[in-house]
């Protein structure tokens, strides 16, 4: 019982990270019908830059803030120079490969700066574990899923209450019509990628104290975040967040009772199964086919 509860709580923590990453994929997809395959590296940038910032003697809060902002800038640049030139064509292979290329470059730069090893980000959230019904967790781990939910609700409020949020919705419904209504589509897309990158880098900062920060930490987290986005339905923000939390919990149980390799098999296998049964994800909207 205690073990199960432990898995549940740690699952929620890592699930919150997946949820934040997946939320980023949702935002990018809604804006551009394209995503950033280097989104995992945005997360890595957040974690690694925060650690480097602390190394440089910055206070923790400032280091984290700067890391997240840098992640956002990365997102904007990536959209402008790697995604936008290729969104016009009808195949997705262009931006897939360019963003993968940028990811490889960023990862290799980070390896050079950071070295090949992993280091945790010091955080008050992991100083002392708290005991809940016999399960030991760090406050940081408890905070992560809450922050993911907050991010989702915040994003929803942004969409419903602000001009830019409504413009984002308009662009996601119909890019051309939005442009004809005087919306600067390129700016909305750039803003969306920036927001997605902020969430991604934020996830990196949040997870860096729990799992260690390293130049390669982003690859698998990014791919899983994408898998989660597809399971939840990439068109639905609440869907991807719920799927993220669920995915994290299932992972922890499989990892705990079987093995790490089995965790990946079950995780990615379930993504394929979901996609076969629900092509638009569990909570996604069906894309209409017209002749």
């Amino acid at each position, binding site marked *: 019982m205690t073990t199960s509860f432990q898995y549940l709580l740690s699952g929620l923590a890592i699930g919150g990270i997946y949820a934040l990453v997946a939320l980023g994929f949702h935002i990018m997809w809604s804006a551009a019908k*394209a*995503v950033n395959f280097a989104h995992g590296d945005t997360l890595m940038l957040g974690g690694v830059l925060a650690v480097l910032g602390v190394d440089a003697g910055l206070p923790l809060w400032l280091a984290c803030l700067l890391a997240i902002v840098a992640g956002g800038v990365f997102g904007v640049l990536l959209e402008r120079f*790697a995604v936008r*030139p*290729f969104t016009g064509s009808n*195949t*997705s*292979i*262009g931006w*897939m*490969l*360019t963003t*993968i*290329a*940028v*990811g*490889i*470059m960023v*990862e*290799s*730069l980070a*390896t*050079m700066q950071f070295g090949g090893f992993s280091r945790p980000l010091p955080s008050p959230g992991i100083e002392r574990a708290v005991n809940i019904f016999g399960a030991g967790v760090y406050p940081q781990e408890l905070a992560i899923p809450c922050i993911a939910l907050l991010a989702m609700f915040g994003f929803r409020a942004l969409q419903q209450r602000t001009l830019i949020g409504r413009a984002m919705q308009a662009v996601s419904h119909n890019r051309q019509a939005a442009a004809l209504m005087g919306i600067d589509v390129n700016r909305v897309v750039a803003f969306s990628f920036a927001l997605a990158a902020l969430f991604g880098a934020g996830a990196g900062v949040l997870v860096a104290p729990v799992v260690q920060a390293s130049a390669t930490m982003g*690859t698998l987290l990014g*791919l899983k975040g*994408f*898998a989660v986005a*597809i399971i939840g339905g990439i068109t639905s923000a609440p869907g991807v967040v719920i799927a993220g939390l669920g995915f994290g919990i299932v992972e922890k149980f499989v990892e705990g009772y079987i*093995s790490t*390799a*089995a965790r*990946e*098999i079950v995780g*990615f*296998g379930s*993504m*394929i199964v979901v*996609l*076969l049964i629900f*092509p638009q994800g569990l909570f996604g909207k069906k894309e209409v086919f017209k*002749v």
Partner: protein
Amino acid sequence: MTTFLRLGFALFALILIAIPLTAGNEYELRLFMLFLIYGVIAVGLNILVGLSGLVSLGQAGLFALGSYTGAILATRLGFDILFASLGAAVVSGIFGVLLAYPTVRVRGVYLAVVTIAFGLIVENVAIEWQALTGGTTGLTGIPSPNIFGFPLSGYPFYGILALTLFVATLLAHNLKWSRYGRAMLAVSQSETAARSIGVNATAMRTLAFVIASIAAGVAGTFYAFLNAYISPDIFTFSDSVRFLLMVILGGAGSTFGPVVGAYVLTYLPEHLQQFALWQKFAYGALLLLVMFVVPRGILGTLAHLFRRVVKTERGVNPAEGTPAGETLRQGERIQKVELLARDLTVRFGGLAALSRASLRVKPGEVHALIGPNGAGKSTFVNTISGFYSPTEGSFELDGVQLGGRKPHEIARLGLARTFQNTELFGELSVLENVMVGFQQRLDYGIVDAALRTPRFRRQEKECRSAAIGLLDLVGLMEYANEQARFLPFGHQRRLEIARALAAGPRLLLLDEPAAGLTTQEIDELDAMIRRISALGVSILLIEHHVDLIMAVADTVTVLDYGQVIASDRPAVVQDDPRVIEAYFGGSLNKADQVGAVA
């Protein structure tokens, strides 16, 4: 095959023979053999990426599957290299079919993610299933390659690899220039149109996946034999990226592109070593550079420049054509056909786009379907051609029920169509567009195509001349070799008609063929419809242009709000009060009455 390509293959053979003679040491030869193995993967993947337009980022998974299957067969059961690779081909082929299955429902980036997931699953199964795969330590002690008991070391093994790559490249080339290659290209450029003329899109995508998988599987076995040791960390996501990049860098869809790409990316790491720490960065930068500078790939760009310098003949010789009449007669089959739709109802959510619409196209007639915007004409057309499924009602062609059949099956039963928004295979030539239409009438198999058997040659020749004949019928002979997307709009419409006719329809469905045409073009269309009708093809014409309808139609059916409100000879329908009301609103009298009541 053009002289140019013959030279290419001769040069390729020459290089493959010359390399072992010039290789300085064993390491150099081994590296070249590694390139040959990667080349086989890339050539196979090119069928998937270059022809079918599908992206796989899980090729390393299939490579691993083949590698492990071959290695296990060789170490446990003592299979030689031939049988081990056959076993690997079967296993990876089966997984190819499984991977193709999701394409029925998802494409593009979704499919890419499925393949990524597949690759990661294979990698982790290899780690987890220790009893079979040796887990993270991998499989060691793979015997040196032998065939039928004869040991193959050094040059003989090289010979087998070189021969495999050469033959694979040749077969892939032959496949591209056959009905299979054309159909794959067609599906990737407009799936809707391809299905509407009888191409089984799912079968073509599955075929492409299976070919790519078998190539990766066989290459995997060769790799296991070459390396004598395999472990899960050889088959990672970044290898999948590299395999895809080989195809893109060399030139997706081109014959030698994947080979060139494989060569560059096998040797590149050797040269990048001088960058030491910057090696991975340089690799990423190169990938980026390729996408921006040569998105068509090395050979794709060269071919593009070549075509700009050396102009090919735009048209074809009309003498090569078979008269369209002969093509459409289709041997002894009955020509004239009757379409019967009974009480068709189609609902989208709460909206009934069609409600209990019945229609009968009599054998050999030109039947016009008209109605104001939103009357349900397009829904009707999309339903009887199989793209929408009706909520209620039935429809049949000469007594054969069509309900529940897929578009390509309906097309094969004799119903071909054109589209309101033209749906051409833009990057195929005008002639090839029409030749895709013949797909269902060619019955040579994949082996015929790969080996270019006499049967293949005969049928292709017939197909070509029939296509030329149809181009003559619609007057596009002088544009035959032009890419379809460069045709002016009016010509695109005509090409669609020729392509639909190539499918050998007994009922031709024209969806607003006059939309956007000039008056003169409409006159030509009028004449064309008469010519086609005279050849015995029944026509269902969906149109707005009243003049055209009055001129060519034998019967006119009027739809309004999803219901048939009149169906008769043009002259009768023209005077029908309900038709006038549908088009011009209520009559004056009625308007007066309404006004009086108010």
